[in-house]
Protein backbone atom coordinates (compact mmCIF):
# COMPACT_ATOMS: atom_id res chain seq x y z
CA UNK A 1 0.00 0.00 0.00
CA UNK A 2 2.82 2.36 0.89
CA UNK A 3 4.46 1.37 -2.33
CA UNK A 4 1.30 2.21 -4.28
CA UNK A 5 1.12 5.63 -2.67
CA UNK A 6 4.76 6.32 -3.44
CA UNK A 7 4.36 5.22 -7.02
CA UNK A 8 1.25 7.41 -7.40
CA UNK A 9 3.08 10.48 -6.04
CA UNK A 10 6.03 9.73 -8.29
CA UNK A 11 3.73 9.46 -11.29
CA UNK A 12 1.92 12.70 -10.44
CA UNK A 13 5.23 14.56 -10.15
CA UNK A 14 6.30 13.19 -13.50
CA UNK A 15 3.05 14.37 -15.10
CA UNK A 16 3.52 17.79 -13.54
CA UNK A 17 7.04 18.03 -14.96
CA UNK A 18 5.86 16.95 -18.40
CA UNK A 19 3.10 19.56 -18.36
CA UNK A 20 5.53 22.34 -17.43
CA UNK A 21 7.91 21.33 -20.22
CA UNK A 22 5.01 21.08 -22.67
CA UNK A 23 3.95 24.64 -21.87
CA UNK A 24 7.49 25.94 -22.10
CA UNK A 25 8.18 24.37 -25.47
CA UNK A 26 4.84 25.34 -26.99
CA UNK A 27 5.50 28.89 -25.84
CA UNK A 28 8.93 28.85 -27.49
CA UNK A 29 7.35 27.87 -30.81
CA UNK A 30 6.41 30.95 -32.81
CA UNK A 31 2.82 31.87 -33.68
CA UNK A 32 -0.53 31.09 -32.14
CA UNK A 33 -3.85 29.60 -33.20
CA UNK A 34 -5.25 32.97 -34.23
CA UNK A 35 -2.29 34.09 -36.34
CA UNK A 36 -3.81 32.79 -39.55
CA UNK A 37 -6.82 35.04 -39.03
CA UNK A 38 -4.54 38.04 -39.27
CA UNK A 39 -4.01 37.21 -42.94
CA UNK A 40 -7.74 37.27 -43.55
CA UNK A 41 -8.68 40.85 -44.64
CA UNK A 42 -12.27 40.35 -43.50
CA UNK A 43 -11.30 39.93 -39.84
CA UNK A 44 -10.12 43.10 -38.21
CA UNK A 45 -6.99 43.07 -36.06
CA UNK A 46 -9.10 44.18 -33.11
CA UNK A 47 -11.29 41.07 -33.42
CA UNK A 48 -8.20 38.89 -33.40
CA UNK A 49 -6.78 40.53 -30.31
CA UNK A 50 -10.22 40.33 -28.67
CA UNK A 51 -10.29 36.58 -29.36
CA UNK A 52 -6.75 36.29 -28.01
CA UNK A 53 -7.67 37.96 -24.77
CA UNK A 54 -10.94 35.98 -24.57
CA UNK A 55 -8.97 32.75 -24.62
CA UNK A 56 -6.34 34.24 -22.33
CA UNK A 57 -3.50 33.97 -24.85
CA UNK A 58 -2.37 37.53 -24.10
CA UNK A 59 -1.56 36.60 -20.53
CA UNK A 60 2.03 35.74 -19.46
CA UNK A 61 3.03 32.08 -19.35
CA UNK A 62 2.74 31.46 -15.58
CA UNK A 63 -0.80 32.86 -15.57
CA UNK A 64 -1.80 30.65 -18.50
CA UNK A 65 -0.27 27.66 -16.79
CA UNK A 66 -2.17 28.46 -13.58
CA UNK A 67 -5.46 28.77 -15.48
CA UNK A 68 -4.80 25.50 -17.28
CA UNK A 69 -4.07 23.85 -13.92
CA UNK A 70 -7.41 25.10 -12.57
CA UNK A 71 -9.18 23.70 -15.60
CA UNK A 72 -7.44 20.34 -15.10
CA UNK A 73 -8.68 20.30 -11.54
CA UNK A 74 -12.20 21.11 -12.80
CA UNK A 75 -11.81 18.17 -15.16
CA UNK A 76 -11.82 20.10 -18.44
CA UNK A 77 -8.11 19.76 -19.29
CA UNK A 78 -8.14 23.14 -21.06
CA UNK A 79 -10.11 24.26 -24.07
CA UNK A 80 -9.64 23.41 -27.73
CA UNK A 81 -9.75 26.45 -30.04
CA UNK A 82 -10.30 24.35 -33.13
CA UNK A 83 -13.03 22.07 -31.81
CA UNK A 84 -14.55 24.62 -29.48
CA UNK A 85 -14.98 22.06 -26.70
CA UNK A 86 -13.15 21.17 -23.50
CA UNK A 87 -10.12 19.03 -24.30
CA UNK A 88 -11.24 16.19 -22.08
CA UNK A 89 -14.14 15.12 -24.30
CA UNK A 90 -11.77 15.05 -27.28
CA UNK A 91 -9.11 13.06 -25.47
CA UNK A 92 -11.34 10.41 -23.95
CA UNK A 93 -12.58 8.98 -27.24
CA UNK A 94 -9.17 9.32 -28.89
CA UNK A 95 -7.32 7.74 -25.99
CA UNK A 96 -9.70 4.79 -26.04
CA UNK A 97 -8.95 4.17 -29.70
CA UNK A 98 -5.21 4.44 -29.20
CA UNK A 99 -5.43 2.11 -26.25
CA UNK A 100 -7.32 -0.44 -28.33
CA UNK A 101 -4.59 -0.37 -30.95
CA UNK A 102 -1.64 -0.39 -28.54
CA UNK A 103 -2.98 -3.04 -26.21
CA UNK A 104 -3.83 -5.45 -29.01
CA UNK A 105 -0.43 -4.87 -30.61
CA UNK A 106 1.38 -5.39 -27.28
CA UNK A 107 -0.48 -8.57 -26.45
CA UNK A 108 -0.06 -10.00 -29.92
CA UNK A 109 3.66 -9.27 -30.16
CA UNK A 110 4.35 -10.87 -26.77
CA UNK A 111 2.21 -13.85 -27.59
CA UNK A 112 4.38 -14.40 -30.66
CA UNK A 113 7.73 -13.33 -29.18
CA UNK A 114 7.75 -15.63 -26.15
CA UNK A 115 7.18 -18.96 -27.91
CA UNK A 116 9.41 -18.04 -30.89
CA UNK A 117 12.23 -16.66 -28.72
CA UNK A 118 12.05 -19.64 -26.38
CA UNK A 119 12.00 -22.11 -29.21
CA UNK A 120 15.04 -20.67 -31.01
CA UNK A 121 16.91 -20.34 -27.71
CA UNK A 122 16.61 -24.12 -27.43
CA UNK A 123 18.17 -24.36 -30.87
CA UNK A 124 20.78 -21.64 -30.56
CA UNK A 125 23.39 -21.89 -33.30
CA UNK A 126 21.38 -24.17 -35.56
CA UNK A 127 19.87 -23.20 -38.89
CA UNK A 128 16.42 -22.36 -37.45
CA UNK A 129 18.10 -19.92 -35.08
CA UNK A 130 20.08 -18.32 -37.88
CA UNK A 131 17.02 -17.85 -40.06
CA UNK A 132 15.11 -16.15 -37.25
CA UNK A 133 18.08 -13.98 -36.33
CA UNK A 134 18.60 -12.86 -39.92
CA UNK A 135 14.89 -12.22 -40.31
CA UNK A 136 14.72 -10.13 -37.18
CA UNK A 137 17.75 -8.04 -38.18
CA UNK A 138 16.06 -7.42 -41.51
CA UNK A 139 12.87 -6.18 -39.90
CA UNK A 140 14.84 -4.23 -37.35
CA UNK A 141 16.44 -2.28 -40.18
CA UNK A 142 13.18 -1.41 -41.97
CA UNK A 143 11.60 1.85 -40.74
CA UNK A 144 7.99 1.47 -39.70
CA UNK A 145 7.01 4.14 -42.22
CA UNK A 146 8.20 1.94 -45.08
CA UNK A 147 6.50 -1.06 -43.53
CA UNK A 148 3.13 0.59 -43.15
CA UNK A 149 3.26 2.06 -46.66
CA UNK A 150 4.11 -1.34 -48.09
CA UNK A 151 1.20 -2.97 -46.26
CA UNK A 152 -1.07 -0.15 -47.36
CA UNK A 153 0.01 -0.63 -50.98
CA UNK A 154 -0.76 -4.33 -50.72
CA UNK A 155 -4.18 -3.68 -49.14
CA UNK A 156 -5.13 -1.11 -51.75
CA UNK A 157 -4.08 -3.42 -54.57
CA UNK A 158 -5.91 -6.49 -53.31
CA UNK A 159 -8.88 -4.89 -51.56
CA UNK A 160 -8.47 -7.61 -48.97
CA UNK A 161 -8.85 -5.29 -46.00
CA UNK A 162 -10.03 -1.75 -45.31
CA UNK A 163 -7.22 0.66 -46.07
CA UNK A 164 -7.75 3.16 -43.31
CA UNK A 165 -9.99 4.49 -40.58
CA UNK A 166 -11.45 2.54 -37.72
CA UNK A 167 -14.96 1.72 -38.91
CA UNK A 168 -16.77 1.39 -42.22
CA UNK A 169 -19.49 3.79 -43.31
CA UNK A 170 -22.79 2.75 -41.78
CA UNK A 171 -21.07 1.21 -38.76
CA UNK A 172 -23.79 2.35 -36.37
CA UNK A 173 -26.46 0.35 -38.21
CA UNK A 174 -24.59 -2.98 -37.85
CA UNK A 175 -25.36 -5.79 -35.42
CA UNK A 176 -22.89 -6.11 -32.48
CA UNK A 177 -21.30 -9.15 -34.08
CA UNK A 178 -20.64 -7.55 -37.44
CA UNK A 179 -19.54 -4.40 -35.63
CA UNK A 180 -16.82 -6.43 -33.93
CA UNK A 181 -15.87 -8.01 -37.23
CA UNK A 182 -15.67 -4.64 -38.94
CA UNK A 183 -13.48 -3.24 -36.16
CA UNK A 184 -11.18 -6.27 -36.30
CA UNK A 185 -10.78 -5.93 -40.07
CA UNK A 186 -9.78 -2.30 -39.62
CA UNK A 187 -7.34 -3.24 -36.88
CA UNK A 188 -5.38 -5.75 -38.97
CA UNK A 189 -3.07 -3.43 -40.90
CA UNK A 190 -2.12 -1.01 -38.09
CA UNK A 191 -1.69 -3.82 -35.58
CA UNK A 192 0.38 -5.87 -38.02
CA UNK A 193 2.66 -2.90 -38.61
CA UNK A 194 3.16 -2.30 -34.91
CA UNK A 195 3.75 -5.98 -34.22
CA UNK A 196 6.29 -6.27 -37.04
CA UNK A 197 8.13 -3.25 -35.71
CA UNK A 198 8.32 -4.40 -32.09
CA UNK A 199 8.63 -8.14 -32.67
CA UNK A 200 12.31 -8.33 -33.74
CA UNK A 201 13.47 -6.57 -30.57
CA UNK A 202 11.27 -8.69 -28.36
CA UNK A 203 12.25 -11.98 -29.98
CA UNK A 204 15.93 -11.14 -29.64
CA UNK A 205 15.55 -10.20 -26.01
CA UNK A 206 13.59 -13.35 -25.20
CA UNK A 207 16.20 -15.43 -26.99
CA UNK A 208 19.14 -13.80 -25.19
CA UNK A 209 17.57 -14.17 -21.73
CA UNK A 210 16.63 -17.75 -22.45
CA UNK A 211 20.06 -18.70 -23.78
CA UNK A 212 21.56 -17.32 -20.61
CA UNK A 213 19.06 -19.15 -18.42
CA UNK A 214 19.77 -22.39 -20.28
CA UNK A 215 23.44 -22.14 -19.33
CA UNK A 216 22.66 -22.38 -15.61
CA UNK A 217 23.99 -25.54 -13.94
CA UNK A 218 20.53 -26.52 -12.71
CA UNK A 219 19.44 -26.78 -16.31
CA UNK A 220 22.34 -29.17 -16.90
CA UNK A 221 21.31 -31.13 -13.84
CA UNK A 222 17.77 -31.34 -15.14
CA UNK A 223 19.04 -32.63 -18.49
CA UNK A 224 21.01 -35.26 -16.62
CA UNK A 225 17.86 -36.75 -15.17
CA UNK A 226 16.29 -36.91 -18.58
CA UNK A 227 13.91 -33.98 -18.66
CA UNK A 228 11.96 -33.29 -21.86
CA UNK A 229 12.77 -30.26 -23.98
CA UNK A 230 9.42 -28.50 -23.54
CA UNK A 231 9.39 -28.92 -19.77
CA UNK A 232 12.98 -27.75 -19.57
CA UNK A 233 12.33 -24.63 -21.61
CA UNK A 234 9.06 -23.54 -20.10
CA UNK A 235 9.26 -24.77 -16.51
CA UNK A 236 12.94 -24.26 -15.78
CA UNK A 237 14.42 -21.67 -18.08
CA UNK A 238 11.52 -19.33 -18.79
CA UNK A 239 10.76 -18.38 -15.14
CA UNK A 240 14.43 -17.58 -14.64
CA UNK A 241 14.59 -15.58 -17.85
CA UNK A 242 11.32 -13.79 -17.11
CA UNK A 243 12.47 -10.92 -14.90
CA UNK A 244 14.32 -8.83 -17.47
CA UNK A 245 11.56 -9.59 -19.95
CA UNK A 246 8.87 -8.22 -17.66
CA UNK A 247 10.79 -4.98 -17.32
CA UNK A 248 11.05 -4.95 -21.09
CA UNK A 249 7.28 -5.39 -21.23
CA UNK A 250 6.82 -1.98 -19.60
CA UNK A 251 9.26 -0.43 -22.05
CA UNK A 252 7.62 -2.13 -25.01
CA UNK A 253 4.33 -0.42 -24.16
CA UNK A 254 6.10 2.93 -24.38
CA UNK A 255 7.73 1.97 -27.66
CA UNK A 256 4.47 0.82 -29.18
CA UNK A 257 2.73 3.96 -28.00
CA UNK A 258 5.16 6.23 -29.80
CA UNK A 259 5.12 3.93 -32.80
CA UNK A 260 1.35 3.99 -32.89
CA UNK A 261 1.27 7.80 -33.21
CA UNK A 262 2.87 7.58 -36.63
CA UNK A 263 0.89 4.55 -37.77
CA UNK A 264 -2.36 6.15 -36.65
CA UNK A 265 -1.60 9.31 -38.58
CA UNK A 266 -0.93 7.35 -41.76
CA UNK A 267 -3.80 4.93 -41.42
CA UNK A 268 -6.32 7.56 -40.39
CA UNK A 269 -6.93 5.76 -37.13
CA UNK A 270 -8.84 8.20 -34.90
CA UNK A 271 -6.45 7.96 -31.98
CA UNK A 272 -4.17 10.39 -30.20
CA UNK A 273 -1.64 10.46 -33.08
CA UNK A 274 -3.65 12.37 -35.70
CA UNK A 275 -5.13 14.60 -33.01
CA UNK A 276 -1.68 15.53 -31.72
CA UNK A 277 -0.35 16.14 -35.23
CA UNK A 278 -3.29 18.34 -36.22
CA UNK A 279 -3.22 20.27 -32.98
CA UNK A 280 0.53 20.84 -33.19
CA UNK A 281 0.24 22.20 -36.73
CA UNK A 282 -2.62 24.55 -35.89
CA UNK A 283 -1.12 25.58 -32.49
CA UNK A 284 -4.10 24.27 -30.59
CA UNK A 285 -1.80 24.11 -27.59
CA UNK A 286 -4.10 22.77 -24.91
CA UNK A 287 -4.91 19.78 -27.08
CA UNK A 288 -1.18 19.19 -27.61
CA UNK A 289 -0.52 19.34 -23.90
CA UNK A 290 -3.50 17.08 -23.18
CA UNK A 291 -2.46 14.45 -25.75
CA UNK A 292 1.14 14.39 -24.52
CA UNK A 293 -0.07 14.07 -20.93
CA UNK A 294 -2.32 11.16 -21.84
CA UNK A 295 0.55 9.34 -23.54
CA UNK A 296 2.71 9.96 -20.48
CA UNK A 297 -0.02 8.58 -18.27
CA UNK A 298 -0.17 5.41 -20.38
CA UNK A 299 3.58 4.98 -20.10
CA UNK A 300 3.52 5.41 -16.34
CA UNK A 301 0.71 2.90 -16.07
CA UNK A 302 2.62 0.52 -18.35
CA UNK A 303 5.75 0.50 -16.21
CA UNK A 304 3.62 0.22 -13.11
CA UNK A 305 1.88 -2.81 -14.60
CA UNK A 306 5.29 -4.35 -15.36
CA UNK A 307 6.43 -3.91 -11.77
CA UNK A 308 3.22 -5.39 -10.55
CA UNK A 309 3.58 -8.48 -12.74
CA UNK A 310 7.15 -8.87 -11.52
CA UNK A 311 5.97 -9.03 -7.92
CA UNK A 312 3.35 -11.63 -8.76
CA UNK A 313 5.69 -13.79 -10.83
CA UNK A 314 8.81 -13.66 -8.66
CA UNK A 315 8.32 -14.22 -4.93
CA UNK A 316 11.79 -12.84 -4.24
CA UNK A 317 10.84 -9.34 -5.40
CA UNK A 318 9.06 -7.28 -2.79
CA UNK A 319 7.40 -3.91 -3.10
CA UNK A 320 9.57 -1.79 -0.89
Amino acid at each position, binding site marked *: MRYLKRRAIHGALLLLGVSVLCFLFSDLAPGSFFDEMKLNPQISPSTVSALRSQYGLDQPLPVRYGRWMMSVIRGDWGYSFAYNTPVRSLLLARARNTLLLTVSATLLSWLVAIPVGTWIAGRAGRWEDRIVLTGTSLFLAVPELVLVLFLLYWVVRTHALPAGGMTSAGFDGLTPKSKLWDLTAHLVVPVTTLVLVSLPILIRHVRTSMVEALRAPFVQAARAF*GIGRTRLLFRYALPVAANPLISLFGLSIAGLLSGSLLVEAIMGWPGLGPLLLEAAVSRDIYVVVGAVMTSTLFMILGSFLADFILVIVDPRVRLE
Partner: protein
Amino acid sequence: MGIEAAAKRAVKAPLMTTRGLSKQYVQRSAFSRNKFVIDAVAEADLEIAPECLTTLVGESGSGKSTLATCLALLERPDRGEIWFEQKEISRLSDRDLRPLRPRIQMVFQDSAGALNPRFSAAQIIAEPLEVQGRETGQGLRTRACELMEEVGLSPDWADRRPLEFSGGQRQRLAIARAIALKPALLILDESLSGLDLSTQAQIVNLLLDLRDKHALTYLLISHDLSLAEQVADFVVVMHQGKIVERGTRHDVFLRPRHPHTQQLVSACHVVEAAFRTAQAGGQP
Protein backbone atom coordinates in the same frame (compact mmCIF):
# COMPACT_ATOMS: atom_id res chain seq x y z
CA MET B 1 38.12 -49.32 2.92
CA GLY B 2 41.28 -51.34 2.61
CA ILE B 3 43.13 -51.78 -0.60
CA GLU B 4 42.32 -55.50 -0.60
CA ALA B 5 38.58 -54.81 -0.59
CA ALA B 6 38.98 -52.35 -3.43
CA ALA B 7 40.99 -54.85 -5.39
CA LYS B 8 38.31 -57.46 -4.79
CA ARG B 9 35.66 -55.16 -6.19
CA ALA B 10 37.82 -54.27 -9.17
CA VAL B 11 37.86 -57.91 -10.18
CA LYS B 12 34.29 -57.44 -11.37
CA ALA B 13 33.79 -55.98 -14.84
CA PRO B 14 34.15 -52.19 -14.86
CA LEU B 15 30.91 -50.23 -14.64
CA MET B 16 32.03 -47.73 -17.22
CA THR B 17 34.80 -47.91 -19.78
CA THR B 18 35.85 -45.33 -22.32
CA ARG B 19 38.04 -45.87 -25.35
CA GLY B 20 39.75 -43.07 -27.22
CA LEU B 21 37.29 -40.51 -25.97
CA SER B 22 37.94 -37.07 -27.47
CA LYS B 23 36.21 -33.75 -27.30
CA GLN B 24 37.32 -30.62 -29.12
CA TYR B 25 36.12 -27.07 -28.87
CA VAL B 26 36.47 -24.90 -31.92
CA GLN B 27 36.64 -21.16 -31.61
CA ARG B 28 36.17 -19.08 -34.72
CA SER B 29 37.09 -15.45 -34.84
CA ALA B 30 34.40 -13.26 -36.33
CA PHE B 31 36.13 -11.71 -39.33
CA SER B 32 38.82 -14.14 -40.36
CA ARG B 33 39.13 -17.75 -41.25
CA ASN B 34 41.34 -18.51 -38.29
CA LYS B 35 40.15 -21.36 -36.13
CA PHE B 36 41.40 -22.28 -32.72
CA VAL B 37 40.96 -25.92 -31.91
CA ILE B 38 41.18 -26.82 -28.26
CA ASP B 39 41.58 -30.49 -27.43
CA ALA B 40 39.72 -30.45 -24.15
CA VAL B 41 39.85 -34.23 -23.90
CA ALA B 42 42.15 -36.27 -26.11
CA GLU B 43 42.05 -40.03 -26.49
CA ALA B 44 40.95 -40.75 -22.95
CA ASP B 45 40.90 -44.40 -21.90
CA LEU B 46 39.24 -44.83 -18.55
CA GLU B 47 37.85 -47.62 -16.45
CA ILE B 48 35.54 -47.05 -13.53
CA ALA B 49 35.37 -50.01 -11.18
CA PRO B 50 31.96 -50.74 -9.70
CA GLU B 51 31.23 -49.66 -6.13
CA CYS B 52 34.56 -47.90 -5.86
CA LEU B 53 35.51 -44.28 -5.50
CA THR B 54 37.61 -43.18 -8.41
CA THR B 55 39.05 -39.69 -8.26
CA LEU B 56 39.94 -37.76 -11.35
CA VAL B 57 42.60 -35.20 -10.47
CA GLY B 58 44.42 -32.57 -12.46
CA GLU B 59 45.04 -28.86 -12.53
CA SER B 60 42.52 -26.29 -13.72
CA GLY B 61 41.92 -26.53 -17.46
CA SER B 62 43.19 -30.08 -17.73
CA GLY B 63 39.85 -31.27 -19.14
CA LYS B 64 38.39 -32.94 -16.05
CA SER B 65 35.03 -31.24 -16.25
CA THR B 66 34.71 -31.74 -19.98
CA LEU B 67 35.37 -35.42 -19.51
CA ALA B 68 32.74 -35.50 -16.77
CA THR B 69 30.07 -33.82 -18.88
CA CYS B 70 30.86 -36.26 -21.69
CA LEU B 71 30.52 -39.22 -19.33
CA ALA B 72 27.16 -37.92 -18.14
CA LEU B 73 26.23 -37.48 -21.82
CA LEU B 74 25.45 -33.81 -21.28
CA GLU B 75 27.77 -33.26 -24.19
CA ARG B 76 28.51 -35.69 -26.96
CA PRO B 77 32.14 -36.67 -27.43
CA ASP B 78 33.56 -36.10 -30.91
CA ARG B 79 35.27 -39.47 -31.09
CA GLY B 80 35.61 -42.58 -29.00
CA GLU B 81 33.31 -44.93 -27.18
CA ILE B 82 31.64 -44.94 -23.81
CA TRP B 83 30.64 -48.37 -22.54
CA PHE B 84 28.24 -48.40 -19.64
CA GLU B 85 26.78 -51.62 -18.24
CA GLN B 86 27.93 -53.49 -21.34
CA LYS B 87 26.35 -51.02 -23.76
CA GLU B 88 27.92 -48.39 -26.00
CA ILE B 89 26.02 -45.23 -25.13
CA SER B 90 27.81 -42.29 -26.72
CA ARG B 91 25.92 -42.55 -30.01
CA LEU B 92 22.44 -43.14 -28.62
CA SER B 93 19.73 -40.68 -29.59
CA ASP B 94 18.23 -38.44 -26.92
CA ARG B 95 15.13 -40.59 -26.92
CA ASP B 96 17.03 -43.86 -26.42
CA LEU B 97 19.16 -42.21 -23.80
CA ARG B 98 16.24 -41.11 -21.68
CA PRO B 99 15.61 -44.40 -19.86
CA LEU B 100 19.36 -44.64 -19.26
CA ARG B 101 19.81 -41.14 -17.83
CA PRO B 102 18.73 -42.07 -14.29
CA ARG B 103 21.63 -44.57 -14.09
CA ILE B 104 24.25 -41.80 -14.35
CA GLN B 105 23.74 -38.73 -12.21
CA MET B 106 25.88 -35.72 -11.59
CA VAL B 107 26.50 -33.37 -8.66
CA PHE B 108 28.01 -30.02 -9.57
CA GLN B 109 30.47 -27.70 -7.87
CA ASP B 110 28.25 -24.63 -7.61
CA SER B 111 25.42 -25.93 -5.47
CA ALA B 112 23.61 -22.57 -5.54
CA GLY B 113 23.53 -22.60 -9.32
CA ALA B 114 22.76 -26.29 -9.64
CA LEU B 115 19.46 -26.02 -7.80
CA ASN B 116 16.57 -24.22 -9.40
CA PRO B 117 16.21 -21.04 -7.30
CA ARG B 118 12.46 -20.90 -7.93
CA PHE B 119 11.67 -24.37 -6.55
CA SER B 120 11.39 -25.49 -2.95
CA ALA B 121 13.69 -28.21 -1.61
CA ALA B 122 10.96 -30.85 -1.91
CA GLN B 123 10.14 -29.81 -5.46
CA ILE B 124 13.80 -29.99 -6.44
CA ILE B 125 14.15 -33.56 -5.20
CA ALA B 126 10.77 -34.57 -6.61
CA GLU B 127 11.43 -33.26 -10.12
CA PRO B 128 13.50 -36.22 -11.37
CA LEU B 129 11.02 -38.65 -9.83
CA GLU B 130 8.17 -36.93 -11.60
CA VAL B 131 9.98 -36.57 -14.91
CA GLN B 132 10.90 -40.24 -14.95
CA GLY B 133 7.42 -41.21 -13.79
CA ARG B 134 8.63 -42.96 -10.64
CA GLU B 135 6.12 -41.32 -8.31
CA THR B 136 2.99 -39.22 -8.60
CA GLY B 137 0.89 -36.92 -6.45
CA GLN B 138 1.39 -37.21 -2.71
CA GLY B 139 4.02 -39.92 -3.18
CA LEU B 140 6.38 -37.34 -4.64
CA ARG B 141 6.51 -35.28 -1.48
CA THR B 142 6.72 -38.29 0.83
CA ARG B 143 9.65 -39.66 -1.14
CA ALA B 144 11.33 -36.24 -1.26
CA CYS B 145 11.11 -35.98 2.54
CA GLU B 146 12.54 -39.49 2.94
CA LEU B 147 15.44 -38.56 0.72
CA MET B 148 16.07 -35.36 2.65
CA GLU B 149 16.27 -37.38 5.81
CA GLU B 150 18.60 -39.85 4.16
CA VAL B 151 21.14 -37.12 3.35
CA GLY B 152 20.83 -35.60 6.82
CA LEU B 153 18.43 -32.74 6.17
CA SER B 154 15.33 -32.22 8.27
CA PRO B 155 12.10 -32.77 6.31
CA ASP B 156 10.78 -29.69 8.11
CA TRP B 157 12.85 -27.68 5.65
CA ALA B 158 11.06 -29.15 2.64
CA ASP B 159 9.44 -25.85 1.73
CA ARG B 160 12.57 -23.75 1.93
CA ARG B 161 14.20 -22.48 -1.22
CA PRO B 162 17.80 -23.42 -2.03
CA LEU B 163 19.23 -20.02 -1.15
CA GLU B 164 17.92 -20.40 2.41
CA PHE B 165 20.30 -23.33 2.96
CA SER B 166 24.01 -23.20 3.72
CA GLY B 167 26.55 -24.39 1.17
CA GLY B 168 26.97 -27.80 2.78
CA GLN B 169 23.23 -28.28 3.12
CA ARG B 170 22.72 -27.32 -0.50
CA GLN B 171 25.27 -29.91 -1.56
CA ARG B 172 23.36 -32.50 0.49
CA LEU B 173 20.21 -31.41 -1.32
CA ALA B 174 21.94 -31.88 -4.66
CA ILE B 175 23.07 -35.35 -3.57
CA ALA B 176 19.51 -36.20 -2.51
CA ARG B 177 18.26 -35.20 -5.96
CA ALA B 178 21.01 -37.24 -7.63
CA ILE B 179 20.31 -40.43 -5.68
CA ALA B 180 16.52 -40.06 -6.02
CA LEU B 181 16.60 -42.07 -9.23
CA LYS B 182 18.79 -44.81 -7.71
CA PRO B 183 21.71 -44.33 -10.09
CA ALA B 184 24.60 -46.73 -10.52
CA LEU B 185 27.19 -44.03 -11.17
CA LEU B 186 27.41 -40.68 -9.45
CA ILE B 187 29.75 -38.13 -10.99
CA LEU B 188 30.81 -35.50 -8.47
CA ASP B 189 32.26 -32.59 -10.40
CA GLU B 190 34.30 -30.65 -7.83
CA SER B 191 31.34 -31.14 -5.50
CA LEU B 192 33.50 -30.86 -2.40
CA SER B 193 35.47 -27.81 -3.49
CA GLY B 194 34.42 -24.56 -1.92
CA LEU B 195 33.28 -26.22 1.29
CA ASP B 196 35.20 -25.87 4.50
CA LEU B 197 37.16 -28.89 5.72
CA SER B 198 34.73 -30.13 8.37
CA THR B 199 31.78 -29.85 5.96
CA GLN B 200 33.88 -31.67 3.37
CA ALA B 201 34.51 -34.44 5.82
CA GLN B 202 30.81 -34.73 6.67
CA ILE B 203 29.84 -34.93 3.02
CA VAL B 204 32.54 -37.53 2.35
CA ASN B 205 31.18 -39.64 5.20
CA LEU B 206 27.67 -39.24 3.82
CA LEU B 207 28.87 -40.36 0.39
CA LEU B 208 30.62 -43.41 1.84
CA ASP B 209 27.48 -44.37 3.82
CA LEU B 210 25.33 -43.99 0.74
CA ARG B 211 27.72 -46.12 -1.28
CA ASP B 212 27.45 -49.01 1.14
CA LYS B 213 23.67 -48.66 1.27
CA HIS B 214 22.92 -48.31 -2.44
CA ALA B 215 25.95 -49.96 -4.05
CA LEU B 216 26.91 -46.64 -5.66
CA THR B 217 29.97 -46.02 -7.79
CA TYR B 218 31.59 -42.61 -7.59
CA LEU B 219 33.71 -40.62 -9.93
CA LEU B 220 34.98 -37.71 -7.87
CA ILE B 221 36.54 -34.89 -9.82
CA SER B 222 38.86 -32.73 -7.79
CA HIS B 223 41.93 -30.61 -7.94
CA ASP B 224 42.55 -31.42 -4.30
CA LEU B 225 45.18 -34.14 -4.13
CA SER B 226 45.19 -34.51 -0.38
CA LEU B 227 41.46 -35.22 -0.52
CA ALA B 228 42.07 -37.85 -3.19
CA GLU B 229 44.84 -39.37 -1.11
CA GLN B 230 42.43 -39.88 1.74
CA VAL B 231 39.27 -41.16 0.09
CA ALA B 232 40.10 -42.64 -3.30
CA ASP B 233 40.25 -46.30 -4.22
CA PHE B 234 41.56 -45.46 -7.67
CA VAL B 235 43.18 -42.31 -8.97
CA VAL B 236 43.22 -41.00 -12.51
CA VAL B 237 45.46 -38.05 -13.35
CA MET B 238 44.72 -35.73 -16.24
CA HIS B 239 47.10 -33.26 -17.81
CA GLN B 240 46.33 -31.05 -20.81
CA GLY B 241 43.39 -33.14 -21.92
CA LYS B 242 45.20 -36.46 -21.66
CA ILE B 243 45.00 -39.14 -19.01
CA VAL B 244 48.62 -39.46 -17.95
CA GLU B 245 48.34 -41.91 -15.11
CA ARG B 246 45.83 -44.22 -13.54
CA GLY B 247 46.02 -46.82 -10.84
CA THR B 248 45.17 -47.57 -7.26
CA ARG B 249 45.64 -44.76 -4.77
CA HIS B 250 48.60 -46.62 -3.38
CA ASP B 251 50.36 -46.86 -6.75
CA VAL B 252 49.76 -43.31 -7.81
CA PHE B 253 50.75 -41.65 -4.57
CA LEU B 254 53.66 -43.86 -3.58
CA ARG B 255 55.05 -44.70 -6.99
CA PRO B 256 53.99 -41.98 -9.43
CA ARG B 257 55.40 -42.76 -12.87
CA HIS B 258 54.49 -39.80 -15.02
CA PRO B 259 56.63 -36.69 -14.39
CA HIS B 260 53.49 -34.54 -14.07
CA THR B 261 52.06 -36.80 -11.38
CA GLN B 262 55.39 -36.76 -9.57
CA GLN B 263 55.30 -32.99 -9.64
CA LEU B 264 51.72 -32.85 -8.36
CA VAL B 265 52.32 -35.33 -5.58
CA SER B 266 55.50 -33.67 -4.35
CA ALA B 267 53.83 -30.24 -4.46
CA CYS B 268 50.99 -31.65 -2.45
CA HIS B 269 53.37 -33.02 0.15
CA VAL B 270 55.27 -29.75 0.36
CA VAL B 271 52.05 -27.87 1.03
CA GLU B 272 50.98 -30.41 3.59
CA ALA B 273 54.31 -30.29 5.39
CA ALA B 274 54.17 -26.50 5.45
CA PHE B 275 50.65 -26.68 6.81
CA ARG B 276 51.69 -29.04 9.59
CA THR B 277 54.62 -26.87 10.55
CA ALA B 278 52.42 -23.82 10.60
CA GLN B 279 49.90 -25.67 12.72
CA ALA B 280 52.60 -26.67 15.15
CA GLY B 281 53.43 -22.99 15.48
CA GLY B 282 56.91 -23.16 13.97
CA GLN B 283 58.43 -21.54 10.93
CA PRO B 284 58.43 -23.62 7.73
